[in-house]
């Protein structure tokens, strides 16, 4: 039995280490600031482990050593006292050196977090209960566009996120790219991010913000500049016109029902601003802040009963007939 446990230990260690990889892990750093944070984490963990082991060795030795035969209390062994004071002074000096070393390195590591160099792109991210509103700014106001829960950035460029909470405090955290930054109502915060490698990185609200805090995820998609430009150009376009009669019926239902009072679809009469912009909802990876992959089925399920899927969110259950539900979901899925 013991042997089995011993044999399974390396496997268990590998399993635990596997948690360090993946699309949402500070140990799998793909951004400039995440890399310097990772170095800091490793340095502190290694040094603390060494210190812990030394302390444990000293403790075990002290516990296991045979006590010297008792002498009279006034009988001072000068040599022993000298050794003890040297040892204790060395331990105090080592503590001071280690802690000052940590202070200095973490100071320089955090200073490196604000990426040096000019910003190539500014993105405004607002945190709401419980989704992320993302605004991109073009050269003219006509080139601005909005999306939700999905942020595209070019690889190897400095991107500045302007962060602000719209209702309560949220926190913007993409562990593979950068550290956390809070989104506070009435106080704009900024975070510089530079993705070193292309990929899809998952982010998550890191400040408890209410019932559905756990379902407040987003994705950062880092892609080469050419792909990013193509994506931005596509997002700038108004929504696609319905291609078939079903989508057209869906658009009609969307505009005449309460949907249009909260959601925008650019190029139509829907100009609500309280909910996510749905102009290109079909092109996003997920809906409802990472709750489901975007498919026609998941869209229909979400519209039919949002309060069962994500209790407490601000999307009401709108009464739609069977045909309306089918056509609205077809229309939204077609908004690529």
């Amino acid at each position: 039995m013991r042997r089995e446990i011993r044999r399974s230990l390396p496997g268990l260690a590998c399993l635990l280490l596997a948690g360090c990889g993946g699309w949402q892990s500070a140990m799998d750093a793909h951004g400039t600031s995440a890399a310097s944070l990772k170095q800091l984490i490793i340095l502190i963990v290694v040094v603390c482990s060494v210190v812990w082991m030394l302390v444990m060795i000293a403790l075990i030795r002290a516990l296991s050593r045979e006590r010297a035969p008792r002498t009279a209390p006034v009988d001072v062994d000068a040599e022993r006292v000298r050794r003890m004071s040297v040892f204790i002074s060395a331990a105090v000096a080592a503590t001071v050196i280690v802690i000052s070393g940590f202070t200095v390195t973490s100071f320089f590591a955090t200073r490196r977090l604000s990426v040096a160099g000019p910003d190539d792109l500014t993105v405004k991210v607002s945190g709401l209960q419980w989704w992320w509103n993302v605004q991109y700014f073009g050269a003219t106001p006509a080139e601005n566009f909005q999306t939700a829960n999905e942020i595209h950035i070019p690889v190897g460029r400095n991107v500045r996120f302007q962060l602000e909470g719209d209702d309560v405090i949220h926190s913007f955290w993409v562990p593979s790219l950068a550290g956390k930054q809070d989104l506070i109502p009435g106080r704009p915060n900024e975070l510089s991010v530079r993705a070193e490698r292309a990929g899809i990185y998952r982010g998550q609200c890191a400040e408890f913000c209410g019932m559905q805090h756990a379902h407040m995820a987003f994705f950062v998609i880092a892609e080469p500049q050419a792909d990013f430009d193509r994506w931005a150009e596509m997002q700038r376009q108004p929504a696609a016109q319905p291609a078939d009669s079903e989508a057209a019926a869906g658009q009609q239902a969307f505009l005449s029902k309460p949907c249009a009072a909260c959601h925008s679809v650019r190029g139509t009469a829907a100009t609500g601003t309280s909910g996510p912009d749905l102009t290109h909802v079909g092109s996003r990876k997920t809906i409802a802040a990472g709750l489901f992959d975007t498919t026609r089925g998941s869209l229909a399920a979400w519209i039919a009963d949002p309060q069962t899927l994500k209790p407490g969110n601000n999307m009401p259950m709108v009464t739609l007939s069977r045909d309306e539900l089918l056509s609205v979901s077809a229309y939204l899925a077609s908004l690529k």
Partner: protein
Amino acid sequence: MRFVLLLACIVMLSGCEREERQLRLDPPVADALNKIRLMPIGIAGAPPEIYFALHRPYEANAYNLNQGKRLYAWFGCSSCHADGQGGTGPSFLDGWWLYGPEMVSIFASIRDGRPHGMPAFRDKMTADQIWQLAGYVQTIGAYSARTAAPSRNDDKQTRPAENRAPAAILFDQGPSPVHADQGPTP
């Protein structure tokens, strides 16, 4: 003595129950809530039976009042009614309800609109949302304080808080009433 202490503990513990939040209405319930019976003149009437079966959830439930406060901002009520003081639209603070202070009247005003500019929100909000908003609007100019109140504003208060019955003072007959011709106190 010990029995009394135990009883006191049980009574106190019973107060720990949290206010219930009705996050999802079954579609038949939501439909039924829409079926108010209004007087022919469009003022006052009776809410549907289900309203009482649910224990008048939109008047005494802090969560619903708070949702109403959010909807007040979301649906742009303040563009005409300001923060309750009124503007192009009537004030809610002065305690003079053009169509009466009953929940059904307020519900009908929001859902179906009223002459002289109040738009209908029938196609913009669900029945549940309209009830929530009506409950909130009623508290802005309440005659009597409630135990439940929406959360306070983040920014400066521009008027008395909703749970302070701001309209009560307007109907205080006192030595010098605010409205000389007010009639009987509601």
